[in-house]
């Protein structure tokens, strides 16, 4: 447990999140009835994920932060939509952006990106285009890298003059 001026922090393992949050919500002494935020944090390719819940209670002067640790290679967490229905959009966002799978969520699909999108953009190994050349995924899709196109093959197959025509038209 760790505190700063107005936040109390608790760390748990990911598979116990429902049990812990249910006690926090239903115990009349604690009464953390409002889910203020649910977000995921990526600590890097060799580390772990974290699902972070922020709770509010009218009995306590501080925000409560529950950090649930998740294995990065097999990111499964139980859903908390049974406790707070409104966690649905948060969990869909976490799945969309980080690829965390919430077991028992009945609507786990992408919320921002299109359904056929394959990557998880907020993971730390997903680099922005400025840095994409350093990415481990660089070169997987050669169409995105014109400098690697081998145009000589085209002129061999289609005969001379094809490239000249194409350049002339454009």
């Amino acid at each position, binding site marked *: 447990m760790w505190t*700063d*001026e*107005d*936040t109390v*922090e608790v760390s748990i393992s990911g598979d116990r999140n429902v049990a812990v949050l249910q006690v926090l919500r239903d115990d009349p002494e604690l009464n953390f*009835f*409002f*889910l*203020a*935020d649910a*977000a995921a*944090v*990526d600590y890097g390719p060799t580390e772990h994920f974290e699902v*972070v819940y*922020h709770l*509010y209670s*009218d009995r306590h*002067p501080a*925000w409560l*932060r529950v950090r649930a640790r998740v294995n990065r290679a097999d990111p499964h967490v139980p859903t908390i939509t049974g406790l*707070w*229905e*409104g*966690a*649905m*959009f*948060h969990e869909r966002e976490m799945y969309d*952006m980080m690829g965390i799978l919430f077991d028992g969520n*009945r*609507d*786990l*699909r*992408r*919320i*921002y*990106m*299109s*359904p*056929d999108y*394959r990557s998880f*953009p*907020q993971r730390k190994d997903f680099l*922005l285009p400025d840095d994409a050349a350093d990415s481990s995924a660089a070169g997987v899709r050669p169409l995105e890298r014109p400098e690697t196109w081998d145009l000589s093959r085209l002129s061999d197959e289609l005969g001379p003059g094809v490239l000249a025509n194409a350049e002339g038209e454009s």
Partner: protein
Amino acid sequence: MTSEVKIPDPIDLDRAEEARLRRVAGLAAQRTTPAGEYAGFESVGLPELPPQTERERQVYTLEEGEMLVNMGPQHPSTHGVMRLVVKVRGEVVTDIDPVLGYLHRGIEKLCEEATYTTVLTYVDPMDYLSTMHNEHAPAIAFEKLYGITPPRRAEYIRALVVELNRIFSHSLMMGFLALDMGGITPILYGFINRDEIVDMLSAISGQRMLFNFFRVGGVNWDTNDEFLSRLGTWRGNVLKNVEMSERVMTDNEVFRARTIGMGTLSGKDAIALGVSGPNLRASGVAFDVRKAHPYSIYPELEFEVITQAGGDSNARYLQRLAEVKQSIHLIDQIIDKMPHGPVQAQVPGIIRPKPGRAYAAIESPRGLYSVYAISDGGPTPYRFRMRDPSFVSLQAIPKLMPGRLIADTMAVMASFDPVMGGVDK
């Protein structure tokens, strides 16, 4: 690849007609080519779609007499770019699936690449009707991370601009609510009020819509003569403006018929759904971050948390109206108590907070807006998370609308006042 197409005997035709026919024949030949034979297409292929979820099957499976209607993404009353897939039986809504992401810019990811000062400019275009609030929460979070407190005068100026922003946001909400039911007048009153405040805020910040006014450790500028004179003029007229729009709306028979009893949300459901701010208080739950978790100078100001009992669209409208008056009352107190002094703490241009985590929540016009920032000691945040209130509140629409008319969908949605810039981040 070419197929034989019979060209009519060209003897009776002139040359232009012949050329036309050849062209048509060529196009016809092209169209009959299987897609796979085009160069390069064999490697692309169509991506596999993931299997449908339980909820998706429920929405997109039609029974006898039902059909799907797409509302948006370019529908003017979706308050931005959003698509509602509405399942209807005749004119009655049976289910709704909101489709988001048309405005997604990946602001959280961009902010992880930006220095702490630059982040405050990136968050501006998120919820574009409450720009000052967007900057307030990250500013508080970064100050916690860096361990500084802004000067007293900066805190008062912050509270002043934030309350002004709340008034124009609520004025526009009342206008849009009436506009979505076909009333043009209130939106004009709303824009009169809004333009006066935006001119005032652009006088103090230098920019008209995306103010970029907050800094880590204070605000960018002190008040100036133009701001103060505009503030005085506005304060003289504002109650009259509010009253005018109140007179047009509150007792209007059409408005009452279309809001009372519409989209009734109980306090229990609202908490479960994560609805916050005026929408939650309109359902009778007295949860206001300014009181529940005081930040900035709110502990020094006198105000009560306003609630409504109804929980319907009309209660949400009355809640906004009451909060506009409350904000005017708060502004009077802030101006009375405004201390002298500097408006910015001494902060280097690029700050490197110690590794740590900070959470800051504020009361935006749409509800609880919070920022969770993690520092790893570098010049940029390691993780920057924003919780937008209208993103969460949108989940109430599919809960409330089944059984209602399709025409009321927009009216109920407008009463929740979502802003898609914030929803899609």
